[in-house]
């Protein structure tokens, strides 16, 4: 499949890395020649230098033979013009535009028709949604959603006080009193797919597959306080903050927002009538104290500086704030970040890329390829969602009679609205959704690769 990426910035180059590794033919467009050279050296892609909204450049990039255009330049207007021009040249083209300006958000659905967009993505809004989801279930470091929201893989940290510490996995069902499956464990930076006799230790991060309706039971039986988050402190008043505050307001959560720029404070005050806006510099920790940090149920660090966000989170965690969420623009090395207690880490760029990659896979999805792929456990483990169709082998055969490939695990089977954590007698049928976990990269390209 031929894909054009307009804008070789942070999102553009991350997409280039991921999509070229997955075997798509990529053409990058950018007006800065030196970033293009770097990308050509690093990834197996071709580059066109020029303005991505001009017809000549688009033609040169092969828009007539392309299947998908992703416009991810820094300017929303350029992205829109680029998609609309390209769509005019090649009506069969799918287009994805990154649109970040909150003023355009309400009109996105109407703009899709006007500008010939297949999808508009807003990384900041996605990040806000993701943060809101985490705030709804404090205790999980991360939630990945499969099968249209019926199955989830959640990340938990096992510490010394946890009921799971020093427990073999086969005894876990007795503790949590619902059917869940630990599909991956991250210990000392190495991910593994564990067996039943695996004993959990303090410091492990576990990835648990569970039907969404079991999550509350799971948390309750693990003794993790499921106190509802009522008061949240947001540090930094950027776009993510605006989206998050307005979403939290709808969920009835009280928000106190600290922003250093007075004009921005007034703007936010205008936009968010119900939020408490505080004019103060977050890097001065006294400000957090005087705003009563310890009374809050959660702190979300959303300033524009990664270093400051990390310090804020570390400080808040040290002060005993029950839930801490850190926004980072760049998650260079996961290993370094995980050694700190930053709570949940949210990276808008990664979310945005994952979303686009999912769209690309869905476009490609005619031959039993994964509907979605989520990288978990520092990217060492992949969780994939497959649809069972008429071409799938082994339908209706109990799993104990099948031999899956090494390092491959079927984590859940969703029949209609019911999700089952499989055992030896489980089987799948046409129309079911499977979640498969594998620690070997690139082993599984389509559903029939699961079994040897």
């Amino acid at each position, binding site marked *: 499949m*031929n894909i054009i990426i307009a804008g070789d910035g942070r999102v553009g180059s991350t997409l280039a890395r991921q999509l070229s590794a997955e075997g798509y*033919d990529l053409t990058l467009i950018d007006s800065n*020649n030196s970033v293009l050279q770097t990308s050509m*050296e690093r990834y*197996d892609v071709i580059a066109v230098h020029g303005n991505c909204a001009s017809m000549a450049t688009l033609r040169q990039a092969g828009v007539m033979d392309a299947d998908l255009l992703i416009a991810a330049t820094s300017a929303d207007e350029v992205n829109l013009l680029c998609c609309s021009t390209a769509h005019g040249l090649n009506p069969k083209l799918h287009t994805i535009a990154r649109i970040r300006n909150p003023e355009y958000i309400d009109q996105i659905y109407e703009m899709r028709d006007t500008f010939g967009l297949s999808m508009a993505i807003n990384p900041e809004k996605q990040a806000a949604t993701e943060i809101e989801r985490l705030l709804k279930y404090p205790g999980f470091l991360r939630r990945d959603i499969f099968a249209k929201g019926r199955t989830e893989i959640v990340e938990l940290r096992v510490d010394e006080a946890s009921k799971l510490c020093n427990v073999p996995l086969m005894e876990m069902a007795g503790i949590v009193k619902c059917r869940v499956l630990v599909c991956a464990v991250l210990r000392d930076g190495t991910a593994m797919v564990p067996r039943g006799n695996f004993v959990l230790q303090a410091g492990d991060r576990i990835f648990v597959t569970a039907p969404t309706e079991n999550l509350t039971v799971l948390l309750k039986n693990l003794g993790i306080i499921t106190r509802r988050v009522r008061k949240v402190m947001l540090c930094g008043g950027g776009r993510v903050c605006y989206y998050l505050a307005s979403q939290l307001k709808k969920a009835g959560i009280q928000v106190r927002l600290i922003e250093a720029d007075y004009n921005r404070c007034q703007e936010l005050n205008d936009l968010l009538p119900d939020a408490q806006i505080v004019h103060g510099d977050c890097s001065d920790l006294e400000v957090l104290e005087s705003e009563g940090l310890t009374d809050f149920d959660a702190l979300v660090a959303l300033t524009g500086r990664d270093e400051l966000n990390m310090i804020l989170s570390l400080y808040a965690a040290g002060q005993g704030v029950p839930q801490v969420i850190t926004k980072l623009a760049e998650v260079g090395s996961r290993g370094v970040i995980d050694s700190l207690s930053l709570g949940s880490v949210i990276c808008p760029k990664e979310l945005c890329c994952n979303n686009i990659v999912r769209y690309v896979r869905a476009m490609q999805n005619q031959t039993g390829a994964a509907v979605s792929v989520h990288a978990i456990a520092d990217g060492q483990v992949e969780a994939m969602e497959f649809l069972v169709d008429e071409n799938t082998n082994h339908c209706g055969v109990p799993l104990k009679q099948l031999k899956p490939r090494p390092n491959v695990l079927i984590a859940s089977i969703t029949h209609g609205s019911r999700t089952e954590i499989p055992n030896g007698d489980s089987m799948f049928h046409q129309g079911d959704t499977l979640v498969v976990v594998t620690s070997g990269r*690139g082993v599984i390209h389509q559903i029939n690769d699961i079994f040897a």
Partner: protein
Amino acid sequence: MNYRIIGRFLAQILTIEAVFMLPALGISLGYGEWAAVRAFLFTILIITAVALTLFLICRKAPNALDAREGMICVGISWIVLSLFGCLPFVISGEIPHYIDAFFEIVSGFTTTGASILSDVEALSPGILYWRSFSHWLGGMGVLVFLLAVAPGSKDKGFTMHLLRAESPGPDVGKLVPRMRKTASILYIIYIVMTIINILFLLAGKMPWLEALCTAFGTAGTGGFGIKNDSMASYSPYIQIVTTVFMLLFGINFSCYYLLLMKQFKAVLKDEELRMYIGIVVIAIVLIVINIYGTYGTLGETIRHAAFTVSTIITTTGYGTTDFDLWPAFSKAIIMFLMIVGACAGSTGGGLKVSRLLYLLKSLGRNITQMLNPRRVKGIRYNGQIVSERILDNTNAYLAAYVSIIIFSFIVVSLDNNTIGTNFTAVLSCFNNIGPGLEAVGPTCNFGHYSDLSKLVLAADMLAGRLEIFPILVLFSRSTWKR
């Protein structure tokens, strides 16, 4: 630097070499030449053993090649390829002296066509085939072939470094986003054109083995003759077919890709192609005027002049006539053509027409700027501004080119041949042509040179084929520093 990467890379290259020796083995079997059969069998066994050992030692190598490793891989693999490729000549006893055999196969892989043999017709068919096939393989490049076929090169770290190091030209780019696909397209164009060439030769009633060998020599712009008089005894039809195909293989292959993509305008407007055709036509006209009267008819004069001009500018090196007997003016033109060489991105050698264009344009700019110091002027090539980095590289290339010629000329002169012989021998080897003038002229060979000179000339051939830098870095201390 990671030596394991290089080791595994060499193992892959050697495997390809062993596989490509199989047809030669088959031909030797078919003709019942047992000495040659034994030679190819032994060589294949030796190569397989070495490749397996390297694979075992280096199986844990990481996948990504960086610029330095890519550069070194290219240089070393061509040397290793030649070290093993000459074994059939030695083992079969047809070229018993190892350095002679090494010179011969380097001349083959680098598509030079300079030979140390005085009696080519004495070689057995299998050996003859392998000698000519080395041209074909070396023409487009072994590493490009590896990029096109190697299992696993699909999404591993094979990026631009290898293509850039092995493909000729100042500014190498991909045709399509995927490296593997680019390499496959190049090879498919190459194979199809070779097959068409073979069919044309067969239509001229050439025996099939000779047609294969001639086509391989033409396609790679190599020029190993399979007759002692090269192409002189073949019919005018075959000479004309070879002239046309030599010129075709001297054109940038991306032009053929553009033709396939139906972008005829872009091809017609290609500055390098226009200049290449211009040089060829002017050179033919000048030589015809200069040598008029030497041959019986005007037609024959034009045929010989056209053949010689195309054989030299594309750096092939076949011969239909002894141009060493021509007047000095014609010989001067031939020496100029030797330096110019073919188009970038073709199978030919030399300085490359596009590089000459860059140099001339940058010379013109310097003159303008000397007269108008405040003038800002970029250099355009096919309508696009050429980046200053590429111009710098081109200037550095010219400097390296001249230094190597002078250095080799001085060393080769130890053998006490005439200046004309030594200078054209170096020019001819370094630009991958084959014949020079005087004692290395079209009717003579390189057998009389000393072993030292042969090694220097072989190094020149490699440096010329790989565009100097991949070979030059092997001698640089900073390359091997950890």
